[in-house]
């Protein structure tokens, strides 16, 4: 005897297409000024992104991971309350920006200065960038679990790439989130590339979204370059999370327009024609088309946003580049609550030689790898 025990479907959702046409039935509750705010945030993220890329090339910051093409991510941060949490991967600069993170610290962080990771009232409840792939998804589960135990309604959004969904921690996180019914949203930026490995080499699964189904949790695949659609999917997932209905996996289809990082050269493994094809799906471009269609775009507005973003980014960069590197004392400041005797001794030795060694490192160029 055979029978069907369960059947599943995976939905795809797009609110605004590449031409700026909106599906009114799916349109979330966003005012025109909020949509303008989203546009402004995307532009700001792109401005920082382009400038950080150039700063790396001129040796002023270290290895940098561009977000170019993935700016619609800002909606995932924009929609959150201050008491919500984020547990990012490393290609979410736009999310930090949208949450109101200190602009100076954003640049300072790429200078390899750990003081940028200090939480301040503006970035409260934002974990530092997590380079080990997928570990942050489990942290997010623990964070949401603690909120749940205290009866709080805060959600935790965690981020991962398409490659990251091949990691065991990703599956463990889906499983914990489902079993414990946590207010976790796993936002997968499927940008098609994990360094040189294309999405097709990661899994035989037709979608990444469907990986949630085995864990018994909600999922959706969306157009990740559609900032309104990102907002909509997040809004639905957050509502579920806050009301105790549990987690959601959102697979956002996007494209990494740049290299993996400034140390990478995608031309070695990726057909440049692909990049050209994705240019028309650009998240900023389609919002501009939308504004033009509904008559709220003007060249002056466009220039105004560019000028504002330019001003904000330049001010942050100037301030960040002026920050002197941390004192070597910082190496030992946050290892344990109280420094054990042997580390006190190690610290003393390092500090006693600082003046002599300083000159050796005065002109260190900012290079890096991976």
């Amino acid at each position, binding site marked *: 005897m055979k029978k069907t025990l369960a059947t599943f479907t995976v939905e795809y959702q797009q609110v605004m297409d590449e031409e700026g046409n909106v599906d009114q039935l799916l349109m979330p509750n966003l005012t025109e000024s909020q949509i303008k705010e989203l546009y402004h945030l995307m532009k700001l993220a792109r401005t920082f992104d382009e400038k950080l890329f150039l700063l790396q090339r001129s040796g002023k910051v270290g290895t940098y991971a561009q977000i170019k093409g993935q700016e619609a991510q800002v909606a995932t941060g924009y929609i959150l309350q201050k008491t919500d949490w984020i547990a990012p991967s490393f290609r979410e600069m736009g999310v930090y920006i949208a949450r109101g993170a200190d602009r100076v610290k954003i640049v300072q962080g790429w200078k390899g200065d*750990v003081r940028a990771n200090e939480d301040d009232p503006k970035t409260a409840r934002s974990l530092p960038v997590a380079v*080990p792939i997928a570990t942050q998804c489990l942290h997010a589960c623990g964070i949401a*679990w603690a909120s749940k135990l*205290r009866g709080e309604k805060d959600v935790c959004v965690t981020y991962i790439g398409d490659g990251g969904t091949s990691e065991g921690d990703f599956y463990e996180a889906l*499983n914990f989130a489902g079993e414990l019914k946590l207010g976790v949203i796993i936002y997968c930026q499927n940008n098609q590339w994990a360094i040189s490995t294309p999405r097709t080499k990661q899994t035989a699964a037709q979608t990444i979204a469907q990986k949630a189904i085995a864990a018994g949790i909600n999922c959706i695949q969306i157009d990740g370059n559609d900032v309104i659609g990102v907002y909509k999917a997040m809004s639905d997932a957050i509502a579920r999370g806050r009301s105790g209905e549990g987690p959601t996996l959102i697979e956002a289809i996007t494209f990494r327009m740049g290299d993996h990082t400034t140390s990478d050269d995608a031309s070695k493994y990726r057909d440049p024609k692909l990049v050209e094809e994705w240019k028309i799906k650009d998240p900023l471009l389609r919002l501009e088309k939308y504004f033009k269609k509904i008559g709220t775009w003007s060249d002056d507005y466009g220039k105004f946003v560019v000028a504002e973003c330019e001003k904000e980014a330049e001010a942050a960069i100037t301030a960040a580049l002026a920050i002197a590197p941390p004192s070597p004392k910082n190496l030992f400041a946050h290892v344990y609550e109280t420094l054990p*005797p042997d580390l006190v001794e190690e610290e003393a030795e390092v500090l006693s030689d600082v003046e002599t060694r300083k000159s050796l490192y005065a002109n260190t160029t900012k290079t890096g790898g991976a």
Partner: protein
Amino acid sequence: MTKMHMVGALNQALKQEMKADKTIILLGEDVGVDGGVFRVTEGLQAEFGAERVVDTPLAEAGIIGTATGLAINGMKPIPEMQFSGFSYQAFHHFAQHMGEIRQRSNGTFHLPIVVRAPSAGGIHALEHHSESPESFFIHAQGLKVVCPSGPYDAKGLLLASIRSPDPVIFLEPKKIYRSFKEEVPEEQYVIELGKANILRQGNDITVVAWGAMVQLCLGAIDEFKTENPNVSIELIDPRTLWPFDFETLYASIKKTGRLIIVHEAPKALGLGAEISARVNEKAIFSLKGPVIRVTGLDIPFPQYALEEYYLPDSFRVKKAFRQSLEYK
């Protein structure tokens, strides 16, 4: 004051602290209904509920990763690794996050987590149930590693670990879970982390041992004493394996001039190697002869039919005493 096994002392410590501190939550494989495979958490789910004593899915990275998140968001999780050998499935969480988050967040987040793990060998267990992984945790940096050698210490060290603002790996030697009882005060007491305990005073040899090796060494010292009444041996139990109390050790070998380190973990890069290296740097002129290590072998932990030949035993420890005394 009641005489109890280490299992009872640990259980009492958890129970008392969970009553006092509502942010504590226990999580792990079979820690709830079953009370843990060694019964350390017996009865705690019945008393504190399934929300605070949680039977998790079977996934070590999941347990340690979520414990990290719980601690970031204000809880004091006490996850259990069912056996310390299973902690390798979560090793990236220990090495990349648990020991580092304080530094990576420049002090914003700290992790008051105690990871309990039945550890080490000597009970004829199945494969992968007998490892002594302390060196991995120490090398990961930013963690504290604690290993009690008896019921009294177990309670005081566990309470100190739970109250520590830093993450602690609490290795419970399963061979001595129920092998002997000690008087354990009903009231709460803490044994300061990072301070060694001198269990026997002596003038001729310093022996450093922890966990189940402490009982072994006490026995070996007593046996040796009857054969060599003029030799007195000092036994130091570091209690906290990292940060290690080197000051107590240096003071001891200044007196004895001889050092033997006994541990179950393999010799190569075992904690004995680090102790020996530090003594070399800081106290070499106190020594009359080479540091001697009696340790597990530099081979994978064998299946139990040959376990006795792998682990330090009284024969090997006493042989080391004689070897050490050859240096005048």
